[in-house]
């Protein structure tokens, strides 16, 4: 916050700052929880998430005067956070940046088609009480390359529309949907293949592919 002494020294600048500070207070109060949730889902852990939230609000503070309200304020903040996340090079092991090709998710055997997620007819909320499943989901998301993870988190976890995700990430809707599909296929395969349950075995096909899938999932 501005101190009175700052205001006395530079009245014009200080009043602009006070105005910004007031706007910032409201912005922070209303959106910090949203941004923390987003950041935590992207980073997978609390400390990195806090760093990202701080970086996001610092950048937002500096850009507050330039925000014209063309976009929703949450879209604007998601955009700042996404950019900051792409810039952040923390020591944490992130998944390597690579393209996910659709081909790698196309099942080649009946067994792969039938890989199941072991939730035993439970509702998703009930299934997620299972620590093993929850951890498997977190790990699967964490293993996604960043640009796929961002799309999945924004769309399927934050509930942002595909169009808005496009605005946030500077992509057209088609590209958003394509990334989303691959990200979901990746998570599906990881969840199905981690030995949480017993995937149906395929009587016609070699176990080679199955071994590959399992080892991929347990990286």
């Amino acid at each position: 916050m501005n101190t009175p002494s700052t205001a006395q020294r530079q009245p014009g600048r200080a009043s602009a700052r006070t105005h910004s500070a007031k706007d910032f207070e409201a912005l922070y109060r209303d959106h910090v929880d949203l941004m923390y949730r987003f950041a935590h889902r992207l980073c997978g852990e609390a400390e990195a998430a806090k760093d990202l939230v701080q970086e996001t609000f610092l950048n937002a503070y500096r850009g507050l005067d330039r925000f014209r309200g063309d976009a929703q304020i949450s879209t604007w903040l998601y955009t700042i956070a996404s950019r900051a996340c792409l810039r952040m090079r923390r020591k944490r092991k992130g998944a390597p940046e690579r393209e996910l090709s659709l081909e790698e998710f196309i099942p080649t055997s009946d067994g792969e088609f039938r890989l199941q997620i072991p939730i035993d007819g439970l509702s998703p909320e009930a299934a997620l009480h299972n620590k093993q499943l929850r951890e498997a989901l977190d790990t699967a998301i964490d293993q996604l390359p960043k640009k796929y993870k961002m799309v999945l988190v924004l769309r399927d976890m934050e509930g942002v529309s595909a169009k808005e995700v496009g605005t946030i990430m500077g992509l057209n809707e088609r590209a958003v949907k394509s990334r989303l599909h691959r990200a979901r296929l990746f998570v599906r395969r990881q969840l199905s293949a981690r030995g949480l349950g017993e995937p149906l075995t395929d009587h016609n096909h070699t176990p080679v592919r199955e071994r590959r899938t399992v080892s991929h999932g347990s990286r």
Partner: protein
Amino acid sequence: MAAGNTSKRKRPSVSTGRKQAHGKARCLRILRQLSAYIDDELSGNICQEIRRHLGTCPNCETFVTSLRQTVSLCRHSPSPTLSAASRTLMRKTILETTQAR
């Protein structure tokens, strides 16, 4: 809608060994559209075609079930929350940083 129409006419190539291993061109074409199907973004005709296929192909039926479950788990995954103390501390740090510059 758009997502469905674009691949409507595309015939997946069956030239690769992996695809030949399964050889169900229709399954593959449908798998490519399953997110759009789950999100209800496809035209009525394509949806109908997919539903018809799912009714006769247990493999694809299981696949779409597991994909739906994946999306559903993501949607319901617990929300990480920030403690009041962290919220206050972060606000203080941000404001101090902005004023230090």
